[in-house]
């Protein structure tokens, strides 16, 4: 479904007068995401995980390589043409507070993606939103509350509901669980596992916590300084001797 080949990315830093410094963020990353499977990326902060996510979404351009999502190369499309891609690929960010407009209510937030693709009346929309809130195990009477009135865990659930709203095939979780405390983290992990089964969604999980990734994913890639250092799948298990794996095995 998603095929990435030889993605490389270099950031150039430095002002007009000084010498430009180059840092290689991603080096020859290739992977495939098959239908019905989930893939996870593990690595330290600064290993290039977030940059990879932005490149997959087309928010940043790779220097070389190609990203083919459902037969289309996302970087050859103009912004207005990407709509069809985003219909099947949604994202949940790390920090729920910043990823939702603080001036909006829960209803407005979840409606935004729906309104981009379908035309519904207000009553239909309210029913859709209520169903979505139920499916992420939230109370439906928060529908008209401002997003800032909710707790961190509830906000992240709303973000997940928003990602689910247009029934995408792929949801990207960019450290979506790291800022939550432990109990809420395990609740949302369980929710994600259930939703994955229920809607048949593939997840792309980006995290520094191997427990999260191992719980949700079928394929796992270890990244270190922008390079792939280990590539495992659930059928063959993990090579316990792999240094990148051992390094991340902290908690």
């Amino acid at each position, binding site marked *: 479904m998603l095929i990435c080949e030889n993605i490389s990315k270099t950031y150039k830093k430095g002002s007009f007068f000084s010498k430009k410094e180059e840092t290689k963020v991603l080096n020859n990353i290739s992977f495939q995401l098959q239908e019905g499977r989930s893939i996870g990326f593990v690595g*330290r*902060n*600064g290993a290039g995980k977030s940059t990879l996510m932005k490149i997959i979404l087309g928010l940043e351009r790779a220097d070389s390589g190609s990203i083919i999502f459902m037969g289309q190369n996302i970087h050859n499309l103009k912004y207005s043409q990407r709509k069809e891609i985003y219909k099947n690929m949604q994202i949940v960010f790390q920090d729920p507070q910043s990823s939702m407009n603080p001036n909006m209510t829960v209803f407005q937030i979840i409606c935004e993606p729906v309104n981009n693709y379908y035309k519904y009346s207000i009553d239909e929309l309210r029913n859709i939103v209520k169903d979505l809130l139920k499916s992420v195990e939230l109370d439906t009477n928060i529908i008209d509350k401002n997003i800032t009135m909710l*707790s*961190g865990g509830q906000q992240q659930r709303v973000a997940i509901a928003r990602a689910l709203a247009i029934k995408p095939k792929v949801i990207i979780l960019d450290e979506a669980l790291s*800022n939550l*405390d*432990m*109990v*809420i*983290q*395990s*609740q949302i*992990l*369980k929710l994600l596992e259930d939703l994955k089964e229920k809607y048949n969604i593939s997840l792309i999980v980006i995290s*520094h*916590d*191997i*427990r*999260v990734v*191992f*719980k949700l994913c079928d394929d796992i890639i270890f990244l270190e300084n922008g390079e792939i250092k280990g590539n495992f799948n*659930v059928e063959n*298990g*993990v090579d316990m001797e792999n240094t990148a794996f051992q*390094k*991340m*095995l*902290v*908690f």
Partner: protein
Amino acid sequence: MSEKLISVENLSAGTKHNQILYNISFDIFAGEILCLLGQSGSGKTMTASAILNMMPENVAKTSGQILYGEKEFHNGIYGSYISTIMQNPASCFGSVFTIGQQFEDILKANNKEYTNEKMCKMLEMVSLSNPYDILNSYPHQLSGGMLQRVMIAVALSLESRVVIADEPTSDLDVLGQKEILDLILKLKNKNNAVLMITHNLSVVKHVADRIIVMENGHIVDNFYKDELYNNERHPYTQKLIDANESQYINKWNINFGAYNANM
């Protein structure tokens, strides 16, 4: 029985409309790492700010007292007696002075030796290579983990009796967390103690000697680390343990819990 460094007795506090802490009592003894464990909103940070006498303006202490050694609160408490490590070290350093200048100011204020050699030695102790470069750099040039180490170096060089660490690892990745926790283990010696505030049971298991569990402003459980699995625990503590354990279970048949226990 080792020395009692801080004792909190029947502490209650709250805003006008809302009580935050209910009858909190505990002691911190020399030579231990005490962990305050609880979910966000359980009042653990408020307890710490009460100990530091830095509660927000709208919160007032309604009853109880806090003893530092034998004495009540006095101004000489900061630095030599208590120092802190925060969740977000970037906000604890001013942005216009170099790390070296700020480090020096802190040492001067507490009448400690403030030569460059001494500061470099301290930075080396928290396994920062190139200490001279770090002293000459500005806070925004360092990563979160490095700044957190500088904070620990400051706490180390002040030789305070108690170090209060408020979620010191939450903003770091797992490897960074482990490195910081190892350094915090270093902070503890026979003469002083660490009060660590966290929501993460894995962190607690790694460093704690004694654990206090808080829920909605109450202390619900208070036990030594070895008793975590052995004895019957309070239902809330059990809930935290279960939440933590459930994350180890996965379809890959790898038992992360086993690795964790080895640490």
